């Protein structure tokens, strides 16, 4: 297990440098200027532009810019946002909110998705299964910002049982609706994935042998089918963190959740190029760390991986 974790960490390091370098290279190489973009259609005073360039180190060679950035990361300096606030300060305020939202969403999608997928798989071809398949396809097809508006309209405007925007301090009860929206797409994928692996595991030899050993049906389902079906689901949740991050940006923006996503959302809307780059970089790092954690969890779930040669 130790070797497995060490190997995973060693694999993440080049990916981390590669990904951050890639982002910086894109910003550097693309035909366009984040500083000029700041001025919008009016354009920017050349002196102001030069000052801003110096402030964001945009006047230095590419590799120097990159090294300054990466060096900063290791001392907790993620750069400065357009409003002049250090990105790390903004993160300190917003990250806990996003973490709570994400935890709520992932818990909901995992628990509900696995349960519904399990029942669906066990009742293959029955009414419950067919309905679950249809509903999940609809959830997959409706983009998250549409889901967000529909949820806002139905639960906020029509029924009036939820607030359409999140209040100060982002209390848990206000986060429920955004979390449901955020969870919707992945929930549907988890239902389908769990169903698939349950059906496949039902036909596994070891499941038949477990029954032949004299185990009761509930125990066979719990210990041998459900447990094994969770392995691909965990892998999926790991890779899905990317989608979750994009979803969080849109959802937090629409529900006005004071998290990392909303900060990025507003920077995008206001065309604050450098801030966008900083926050996307932060999200990529979060994504890599989350994936590393999921890989470790995966190792715990699957001994073949843990002891893999």
């Amino acid at each position, binding site marked *: 297990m130790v070797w497995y974790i060490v190997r995973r960490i060693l*694999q993440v390091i*080049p*990916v*981390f440098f*590669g*990904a951050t370098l*890639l*982002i910086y290279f*894109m*910003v550097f190489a*693309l*035909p*366009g*200027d*984040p500083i*000029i*973009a700041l001025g919008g*259609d009016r354009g920017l005073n050349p002196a102001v532009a030069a000052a801003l360039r110096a402030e964001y180190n945009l006047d230095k060679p590419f590799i120097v810019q990159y090294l300054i950035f990466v060096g900063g990361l290791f001392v907790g300096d993620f750069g400065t946002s357009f409003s002049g606030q250090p990105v790390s300060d903004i993160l300190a305020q917003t990250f806990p909110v996003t973490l709570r939202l994400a935890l709520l969403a992932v818990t909901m999608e995992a628990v509900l998705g696995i349960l519904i997928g399990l029942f669906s798989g066990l009742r*293959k*071809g029955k009414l419950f299964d067919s309905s679950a398949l249809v509903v999940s*396809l*609809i959830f*997959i*097809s*409706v*983009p*998250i*910002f*549409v889901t967000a*508006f*529909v949820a*806002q*309209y139905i639960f906020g*405007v029509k029924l009036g049982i939820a607030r359409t925007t999140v209040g100060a301090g982002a209390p848990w009860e206000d986060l429920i609706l955004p979390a449901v929206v955020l969870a919707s797409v992945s929930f549907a994928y988890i239902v389908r994935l769990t*169903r*698939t692996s349950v*059906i*496949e595991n039902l036909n596994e030899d070891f499941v038949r042998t477990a029954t032949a050993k004299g185990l009761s049906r509930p125990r066979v389902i719990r210990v041998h089918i459900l447990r094994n079906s969770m392995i691909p689901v965990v892998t999926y949740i790991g890779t899905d963190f*990317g*989608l979750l*991050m*994009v979803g969080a*940006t*849109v959802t937090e923006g*629409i529900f006005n959740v004071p998290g990392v996503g909303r900060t*990025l*959302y507003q920077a*995008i*809307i206001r*065309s604050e*190029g450098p801030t*966008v*780059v900083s926050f*996307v970089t932060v*999200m*990529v790092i979060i*994504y*890599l760390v989350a994936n590393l954690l999921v890989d470790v969890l995966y190792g715990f779930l699957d001994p073949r991986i843990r002891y893999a040669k």
Partner: protein
Amino acid sequence: MPSNAPLSPTHFVAPLDETPLVAVDKVQVAAKPSNLYLDAWRDMRRRPLFYVSGVIVLLVIVVALFPTLFTQLDPRACALSFSNQGPSAGHPLGYTKQGCDVYARIIFGTRTSLSVGIIVTLLVTVIGIIIGALSGYYGRWIDAVLSRIGDIFFAIPYILAAIVIMSVVAREARSILVLSLAIGIFAWPSTARVLRGQILSVKNSDFVMSAAALGVSHFRILLRHVLPNSIAPVIVITTIGLAGAIVAEATLSFLGIGLPPDVMSWGKDISQAQGDLRNNPMTLIYPSIALSVAVLSFILMGEVLRDALDPKARARR
């Protein structure tokens, strides 16, 4: 042989006429030749879902190619005097806040979504197949290098990457093509991974070794034996990926960083309607429905293809 020895009382022999012997390994074949793709095609034609999704996909394509067949109205002819007016004769879905015809804008927005979907899919498929095939088939250092590059691109979720690109790129450079490139350039690793995995399992087949033992060149084996036997899952994820690209375009347009102002898009319309959610929700709902139905049709098509092409999926039905 001493077959005349007396049999023990427990020795049972079934009468021959009950179980007539059949020649060993007799050749019996079905009426029509069949292989994976012929079978898949036959299977698809039996499924109602194939026709449902097929008709919608066709409709989307026709609307995108010939929008004027569906509306004579100019979607850009907006008049504030019509702002947020409900449906009326010739204007079945009413007007937006700016007084544009909702129906006409939806019709003309189709081309944008489909164009982005197709360009992204082409890009992703070409890059994904080349990289996946090379790393899966040739292995060793080629695989090591290409897989690490794939890991790096995979580490940046493609919509986030497109957000960065579109935020940085000069405003006047924005176009459908640039947006498609921005989405596609980071979306290929999943295609490459799927193909690589598939090739790894196919390339050790005995028929590949037989071809190699014949002296067929590596590249020809890849092209003629390995790829055709590995491509089925790629067809499936490409179809579903097209839906993903349409969603990505809508998301970026919704965020206001996708397309130049004169290009119509469902995502933009949804974005512009969000302020009126309380008063006039339908201007938001109609383009949302168009978007979701287009996405759903490609996802359904992907599902039908998966069910037909993957024997395991067929058994799960």
